[in-house]
């Protein structure tokens, strides 16, 4: 019997990014899904060979435009640890503030795209409308809407003035208010639930076995989050991971939605506890040795493996992004679902291909 074979992507409007899935369908039920990557692969890890370790910050930031600041943060933390640099406390808090603002932005972006995946256009528009406020915060504080570019080795380059923090808080209040209005839709609407509940189930065991991270892991009922390690200033902030237990698209949606609140709360707390003082220290020497640096991205655990050899160019820089880890779980979710649910399921892990392929 002939089956329908569909090239899903590389150019497909549901995914903003080129990801290719060869789907084999029968009456629109997916029988087989094979991914093809490499459409965004640039090979930027290798740029470490020709750029010095300071310049690599800019490049790490451009691994991905959605989680750029946290990439830089992870990289800088790694190098700092390698070189034994103690970052000023204020810088640590500032890093948290920017990271969490980024998380809000990323989650809102995802909520919109997710809504779009099941054809809820007005919800998509609403999420992105709210997100614009966060983008404004980025632009006002970092000088660019996307690549905030504040992290440097030894701290951060920009400071937040008190009136700026006040403004941020008031903007975030508005954001929170508007996000609250979407709660009834994203978490309780009949049609949304119909399209997400029970779709793409990943059990707790599967999630751990396949190496899922971030909301994908937490959506399956595992309370694990790198922020629990207390890097940067997270140790000083009250933080508990958001968990949902069903492991379906809805649970992941729920985790991300609630994390949006949480991130806003973390920014508030960080601003209220923001210590005075320097924002960076001078860096001397060259990195040497190897280190694994981990932070929590909006999509989950990000890992940098850095190996320095005392020269200005690193020996090896390896980036393992959360989506890279979430792809095997995704592949296990796809067979057996409807074609119409493919975008929903794929988006439910919040794929970021540019992160994945670098």
């Amino acid at each position, binding site marked *: 019997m002939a089956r329908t074979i569909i090239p899903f992507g590389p150019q497909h409007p549901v995914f903003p990014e080129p990801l290719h899935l060869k789907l084999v369908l029968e009456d629109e039920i997916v029988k087989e899904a094979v991914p093809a990557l490499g459409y965004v692969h640039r090979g930027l890890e290798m740029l470490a060979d020709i750029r010095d370790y300071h310049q690599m*910050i800019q490049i790490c930031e451009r691994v991905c435009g959605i989680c750029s600041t946290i990439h830089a943060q992870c990289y800088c933390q790694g190098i700092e640890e390698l070189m034994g640099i103690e970052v000023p406390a204020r810088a640590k808090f500032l890093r948290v503030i920017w990271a969490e603002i980024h998380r809000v932005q990323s989650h809102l972006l995802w909520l919109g795209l997710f809504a779009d995946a099941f054809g809820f256009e*007005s919800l998509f528009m609403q999420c992105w409308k709210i997100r614009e406020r966060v983008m404004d915060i980025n632009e006002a504080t970092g000088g660019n809407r996307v690549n905030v570019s504040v992290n440097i080795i030894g701290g951060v380059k*920009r400071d937040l003035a008190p009136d700026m923090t006040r403004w941020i808080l008031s903007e975030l209040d508005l954001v929170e208010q508007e996000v609250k209005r979407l709660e009834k*839709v994203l978490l309780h609407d009949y049609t949304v639930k119909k399209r997400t509940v029970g779709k793409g189930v990943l059990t707790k065991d599967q999630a751990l076995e396949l190496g899922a991270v971030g909301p994908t892991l937490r959506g399956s009922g595992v309370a694990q989050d790198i922020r629990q390690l207390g890097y940067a200033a997270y140790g000083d902030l009250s933080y508990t991971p958001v968990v949902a237990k069903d492991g379906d698209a809805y649970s992941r949606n729920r985790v991300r939605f609630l994390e949006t609140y949480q991130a806003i709360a973390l920014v508030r707390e960080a601003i209220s506890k923001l210590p005075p003082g320097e924002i960076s220290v001078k860096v001397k020497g060259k990195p040497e040795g190897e280190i694994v640096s981990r932070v929590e991205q909006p999509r989950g655990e990000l890992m940098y493996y850095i190996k320095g050899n005392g020269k200005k160019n690193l020996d090896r820089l390896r980036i393992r992004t959360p989506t890279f880890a979430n792809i095997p779980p995704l592949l296990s979710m796809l067979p057996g679902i409807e074609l119409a649910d493919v975008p929903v399921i794929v988006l439910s892990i919040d794929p970021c291909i540019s992160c994945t392929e670098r």
Partner: protein
Amino acid sequence: MTEGIIVFNMTPNVLRNFFSKSATRLYPKETRETFGNVRGELYNKIEACIFCRTCARKCPSQCITVDTKEATWQCDPFVCVYCGVCVENCPKKCLYQKNEYRKPAIEKEVIFMKGEIKKEKTEEDQQEK
């Protein structure tokens, strides 16, 4: 948090949108003041430049070419990622970024500037200090 399944939960939101002014900024017609420290178009006050090549070395995308002998400073705005590293590192603070982005172009362009070779380089440096 009210559990339970209800349809049309989006209605209050869309109705609120419907009865309030749209969020749209009518961009080319209305422009918004940009935020203060936005990293936009890159410029060089060429009079002050000493062609020390710091910017060219530090630039992560290697888009600046400085010729010390000829006293030229050249930047490819299509390669520049507007990161501001050069601005931060320029010893003469002659580089600066506008708050606006560069306008779209229909042809490739480069920023080419020719300055004068500073003879009293050391002297000026001392003055600075």
